């Protein structure tokens, strides 16, 4: 008997490093009971990654290399921010096998070969994470069918914790992309003038060390390599998620910010991105323009523990209720596969 579930081939591999791959991990959890999913990694090495094969096994999700798939397929081929999907013509081959191709850039730019593939009719549907992202990318897609699917975060993966850190701690979690960091990042943190505060960053890299080679990172700083700690442990160590961004970078959504909110870490983020859609300023985070706004809010939260405690809970509540509603995300995603 033919399965009623849609067949979805996901081109990529889950990870807890980087927004798109983390998104994929959570998306698989969301969809596994409703779709017949096969994850197709770019490289063979992923199939030996016990952590993630066990994860997929636990949810009954299949995985296979592209060359081991049948010559004819039916269903959907989904890929999100996978650099190789177009440049290695995986999308083209998947289309030839009979899949309807669904693509999500996840970024504020088009990937190598993406627009050419769209012009060639390889892509059947484009997905956006936000209206903000859509305004930037849509002109390149012309009349391609599209949907805004947002960014599902499985809230149970990021439990709330009431903070009692010995030292007030601020920090950030993001890809170690130098463009995501403002030119003055370490001075910016230190100039917030938070007494005895600690500064924690994950994921740090040699490139970032080079970028800020003029700064003396003293013992207030923990600069952690990617995945040095679990995301949850790391976020639990922070009181505030202070997330200034580089001047050429635009955040399409802000996944790590929502993850922080779920754990009760209060975000202070820049205006001019997508953050207005993720929080209510003053109630579940702070959207800042001027440096003095960052400093005033950070100091207010430092000195007023009851306020901090209340806002931490509100961050969690806001994220769970407004951003991570499982049923709503499921409805949106199942519509994509119609």
């Amino acid at each position, binding site marked *: 008997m033919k399965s009623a579930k849609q067949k979805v081939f996901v081109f990529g591999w889950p990870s807890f490093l980087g927004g798109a791959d983390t998104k994929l991990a959570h998306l698989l959890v969301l969809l596994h009971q409703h779709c017949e999913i096969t994850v197709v990694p770019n490289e063979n090495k992923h199939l030996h990654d016990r952590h993630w094969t066990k994860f997929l096994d636990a949810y009954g999700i299949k995985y296979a290399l592209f060359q081991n798939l049948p010559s004819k397929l039916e269903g959907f081929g989904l890929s999100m921010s996978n650099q190789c999907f177009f440049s290695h013509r995986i999308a083209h081959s998947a289309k030839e096998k009979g899949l309807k191709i669904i693509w999500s850039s996840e970024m504020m730019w088009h990937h190598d070969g993406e627009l050419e593939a769209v012009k060639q009719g390889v892509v059947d549907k484009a997905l956006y994470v936000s209206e903000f992202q859509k305004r930037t990318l849509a002109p390149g897609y012309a009349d391609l069918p599209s949907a805004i699917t947002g960014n599902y975060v499985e809230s149970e993966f990021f439990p709330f914790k009431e903070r009692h850190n010995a030292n007030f701690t601020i920090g950030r979690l993001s890809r170690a992309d130098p463009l995501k960091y*403002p*030119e*003055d990042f*370490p*001075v*910016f943190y*230190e*100039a917030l003038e938070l007494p005895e505060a600690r500064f924690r960053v994950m994921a740090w890299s040699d490139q970032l060390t080079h*970028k800020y*080679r*003029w*700064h003396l990172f003293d013992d207030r700083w923990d600069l952690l390599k990617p995945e040095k700690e679990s995301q949850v442990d790391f976020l639990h160590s922070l009181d505030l998620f202070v997330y200034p961004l*580089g*001047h*050429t970078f635009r955040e399409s959504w802000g996944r790590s910010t929502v993850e922080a909110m779920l754990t009760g870490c209060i975000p202070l983020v*820049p205006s001019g991105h997508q953050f207005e859609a993720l929080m209510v300023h003053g109630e579940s985070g702070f959207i800042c*323009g*001027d*440096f*003095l706004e960052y*400093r005033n809010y950070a100091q207010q939260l430092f000195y007023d523990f009851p306020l901090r405690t209340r806002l931490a809970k509100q961050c969690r509540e806001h994220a769970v209720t407004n951003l991570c509603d499982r049923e709503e995300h499921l409805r949106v995603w199942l519509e994509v596969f119609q």
Partner: protein
Amino acid sequence: MKGRYCYWSVVDGDYAVMAQAVVKSARRVGVFKDFHIWTDRPVEGAICHQAAKFDKWGCLFKLTYLRDAVKQLNYDYFVWLDSDTYFVRNPGDVLRVMRCSPVHITLECDLSNPENRRPDWWDCPNDQFVELMRAKGVRSKAVFNVNGGLFIAHHDVIETLFNLAYEFWTYCKENGWTFNDEPLLAYAMQMLCGNPYAHTFRETMDLWASDWTGRYHDDLPDGKAWFFSDYFTEEKILVNPAIVHAMRSKSALIVSAGA
């Protein structure tokens, strides 16, 4: 031993003569830091380097010398001085104005201040200049102008500083504005300093100020307090900086050099 900082400048002709006055004034008040001067003639008391012929337009040579020559020197920080500068007392630790920033240049006036009487900076209307700065990532509510007479850069930020300045120069040129060193330094400073409000004129005026109105016209600063005039609002502020950018004292500096 690696010095924490040195002063530096690039001069020729009369400016080289004035540089002699700068060094003499510094020594007179007990400043014995190294002065590295790229010059076409000897400057006593300074470590002199032969200045190649340089294009003076817009003072952009400050940035190219910084990147190509000064960076080769073994100091943590470099303090640029225009050659029409005069020390009236020992400034103490000049690096106190860094406040952890890798760059310092005094942020003088807020170009977005509605009280401004001067409508433009280097012929660019204030609101357009603010737009240019915001478009290239300056986030603070106040957008400041600077005077290029003194700036300090950490050795390891020079490449970034130069690149930011060049990025801004290119962007402005594409938008019809060809700027000299000051708007470029103002941009790079506000991108790199963390908290711009820690580097304003009022926060740092004990170290350095520019006598652009000519309080000491054809005369040398004497270490007494004087009124600085805000370039945009014309507000008068009583100052007594250790280092004076004696812009209107050039003839007196030349005389002083030979005295």
